[in-house]
């Protein structure tokens, strides 16, 4: 069974700084997807970024980028120029290629300090 581990329950950073959230996972599969979802106080889960395991290039979406290390089974999220609106719970998630079920980590609560 796949597992996803987020070892940082809470983090805080000053506005405009850069922050990195950690995620590790365990799988015996070679093809899979990795995701970061954001859940602000409104509770709406929002997709931040997605990485396909077969792609060597790290995914980026504006201020959000990932560091995907397949051999180490590590998938960290970097938020650059952090903004107050980035305050949220962040969940790392995994799904097998062809199996649509997501396995989630326990989340990291990120607070951006003005």
């Amino acid at each position, binding site marked *: 069974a796949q597992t*996803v581990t987020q070892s940082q*329950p809470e983090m805080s950073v000053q506005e405009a700084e850069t922050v990195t959230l950690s995620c590790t996972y365990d799988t015996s599969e070679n093809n899979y*997807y990795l*995701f970061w*979802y954001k859940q602000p106080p*409104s*509770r*709406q*889960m*929002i*997709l931040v970024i*997605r990485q396909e395991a077969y792609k060597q290039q790290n995914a980026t979406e504006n201020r959000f980028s990932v560091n995907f290390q397949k051999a180490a089974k590590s998938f960290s999220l970097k938020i650059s120029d952090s903004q107050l609106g980035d305050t949220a719970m962040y*969940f790392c*998630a995994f799904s097998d290629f*062809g199996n*649509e*079920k*997501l*396995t*989630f*980590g*326990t*989340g990291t609560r990120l607070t951006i300090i003005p």
Partner: protein
Amino acid sequence: DVKVTQSSRYLVKRTGEKVFLECVQDMDHENMFWYRQDPGLGLRLIYFSYDVKMKEKGDIPEGYSVSREKKERFSLILESASTNQTSMYLCASNSLGRSPLFGQGTRLTVV
């Protein structure tokens, strides 16, 4: 704007009641999911459906059942609600290979 809509944001039910949580998506997605979210545990899969009338148990199906009579609608049923089912419930949907989209969540309290 594409959407996954859950019928209630907040629900309060009594122990032993039969509870229905409804989810509707307007994107013609084949797959629909019900997750439960608890502090410190992340999201855990209760059930998912990959087609009309098709369903598969997730990691924590005990005490729950589901119904998918139409492609756009996926219902979660608590046959006899108990206090340990007090939680946040999230519905999601996707098509094969696409990232799941989530509803806004239903916070259920069982008293």
